[in-house]
């Protein structure tokens, strides 16, 4: 069974003219790492949060989000709590903001499982100590306050916290953005190791293509609430079949660019207050034709690889072309 399976997820917010997520399909198999890549505002964070039903107030949804075979969007409160404590867990972008500065680390690690009576206090503390060891932190950290740890250490605590309920699915929302370069590499390596050791599926949300290539088995590229292209990491980067992916690869992020942003592609993503007809990328695309502007493309598999899908009317034009167009 897949750790996460999203089918036709459509999410609307009040005051917007079109769905923020528009028919997202995404699968994370058990033990697999999938990278979800996209710019700010592309909906990648919303997509990952939907797996925990962490939706903005007023949001309405269509479609299905299955975690471990159960539909997250329709389950009752008790099941949702079980899902959040034991089946899926999220590692957030900024560990400093994600921890309560007034409560001790030990308290933070154990609160989800003890307050929901999944474990006794003693068992929870024991597991917390084991997991701290697994992420390379001493047990003395339990009595510390978040303010006494570095950002890298805190993100390890967050990872340990996510593993407390032994989940089948880990969601990592740009877990390295707020860290310095050394900690980034360590955290990524650690996540990969732990995924293997505990057999969890990992959805890794990032705007960093290099990181996505390094860590993932498969990559999903998201643009304006839709999955533009998805495929095995190596083929997708070697032979992109969507002009957006190709453009991203052609313009790798500069080191001095502000974090959280992909390198410049001409133009802006369409505004949420406008309705969209046709392909979302058409306005910025070199290959766009009248067809692109009138009809939204469906994802189509590459002739050679049924696992490599792109939502583009003209993907054959990119066929075989190198990334550095």
């Amino acid at each position, binding site marked *: 069974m897949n750790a996460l399976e999203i089918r036709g997820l459509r999410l609307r917010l009040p005051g917007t003219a079109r769905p923020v997520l528009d028919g997202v399909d995404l699968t994370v198999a058990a033990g697999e790492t999938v990278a979800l890549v996209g710019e700010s505002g592309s909906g990648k964070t919303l997509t990952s*949060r939907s797996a*925990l039903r*962490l939706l903005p107030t007023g949001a309405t949804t269509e479609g299905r989000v299955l975690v471990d075979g159960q539909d997250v969007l329709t389950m009752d409160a008790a099941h*949702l*709590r*079980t*899902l*959040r*404590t*034991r089946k899926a*867990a*999220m590692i*957030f972008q*900024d560990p400093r*903001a*994600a*921890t*309560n*500065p*007034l*409560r001790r680390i030990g308290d933070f690690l154990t*609160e*989800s499982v003890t*307050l*929901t009576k999944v474990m006794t206090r003693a068992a929870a503390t024991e597991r917390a100590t084991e997991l701290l060891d697994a992420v390379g932190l001493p047990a003395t950290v339990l009595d510390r*306050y978040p*303010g006494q740890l570095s950002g890298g250490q805190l993100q390890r605590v967050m990872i340990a*916290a996510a593993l407390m*309920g032994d989940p089948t699915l880990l969601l990592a929302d740009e877990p390295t953005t707020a860290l310095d370069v050394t900690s980034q590499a360590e955290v990524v390596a650690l996540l990969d190791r732990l995924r293997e050791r505990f057999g969890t599926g990992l959805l890794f949300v990032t705007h960093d293509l290099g990181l996505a290539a390094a860590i993932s088995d498969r990559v999903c590229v998201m643009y304006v609430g839709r999955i533009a292209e998805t495929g095995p990491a190596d083929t997708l980067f070697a032979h992109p079949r969507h002009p957006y992916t190709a453009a991203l690869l052609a313009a790798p992020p500069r080191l001095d660019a502000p974090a959280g942003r992909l390198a410049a592609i001409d133009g802006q993503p369409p505004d949420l207050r406008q309705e969209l007809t046709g392909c979302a990328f058409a306005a910025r695309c070199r290959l766009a034709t009248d067809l692109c502007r009138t009809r939204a493309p469906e994802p189509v598999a590459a002739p050679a690889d049924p696992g490599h899908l792109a939502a583009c009317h003209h993907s054959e034009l990119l066929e075989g072309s190198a990334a550095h167009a």
Partner: protein
Amino acid sequence: MNFLRFAARRLLEMAATLLGASFVVYGAMYLAPGSPASFLLSGRSASPAALQAINQQYHLDDPFLVRYLRWLGQVVRGDFGRSITYRTDVSTVLADRLPATLLLVAMALVIVLAAGLVLGWIGAVRGGATDSTILVTTTLAIGTPSFVAAVLLQGVFAVGLGWFPSSGAGEGLGDMLWHLTLPAIALALYLIGMLARVTRSAMLEALDGDHVTVARSRGVPERQVIGRHVFRNSLGTVLTTSGLIVSTLLVCTILVESAFSIGGIGQLLELSTTTKDFPTVQAVSLIIVALFMVVNLVVDLLHPLVDPRVTLGSRRNDA
């Protein structure tokens, strides 16, 4: 240890401010127009010999600083001089009247904390119409001075309905509690509004924090999310406010005790002011200022317990 050193430093600072306050309190009386002797005689004309005797008795011929230092020396030993109105030691008058005031302030404080925190909590968590209702109610409460509340409560619940006595402090604890209920509510009303506002906005700020989303995403039940991560995080602000709350309570006892004729130090201050009983005015003012400073000291010492980020001596509200 760090804590002891900090406490010692704050105590010293407090002593210095108290010294300054005592100088202001004593100096103010010295600046009063007309000679103190004429106040003592309250307008009656007296023979030069009688004036001489009074000047002698109250050391009115000595220079100001000498008199201040003598007074200060006595105050330190708990001797506030003799009350001109009551013809006894001021300290005796105070000892008689302090318990009623302290009980009144304590009752009001309990009411303020209970009602203010609950209203602030509900307003922040519920939102919507409940929140708007609480906002309007607290706005009204903040605009109601304690003496207005006192007179209105007295009219409705004491005179109109006869549920509570309309004046006096009562004898014995049970009776006193009964007598002081309306005054305590009158004293509390304004501060309930203020504390509810402060709690509400502090909780809304905490609710916006990512750590709240994280706690929810980990399946922590909502009630505990609010208790452990939202309310808990607003306690620092509440603690900082409580210094202001206690000082306001102390001062407003002057009004409320007068409205309900409770023979506490508040009413004593009012009476001794109108009768120009300076030793008593000085003593009561100094006690109110001292109590206020003690409360601030306690708040400062408690702050690191409530918020581990605050190291002793750094006040977050300075920022």
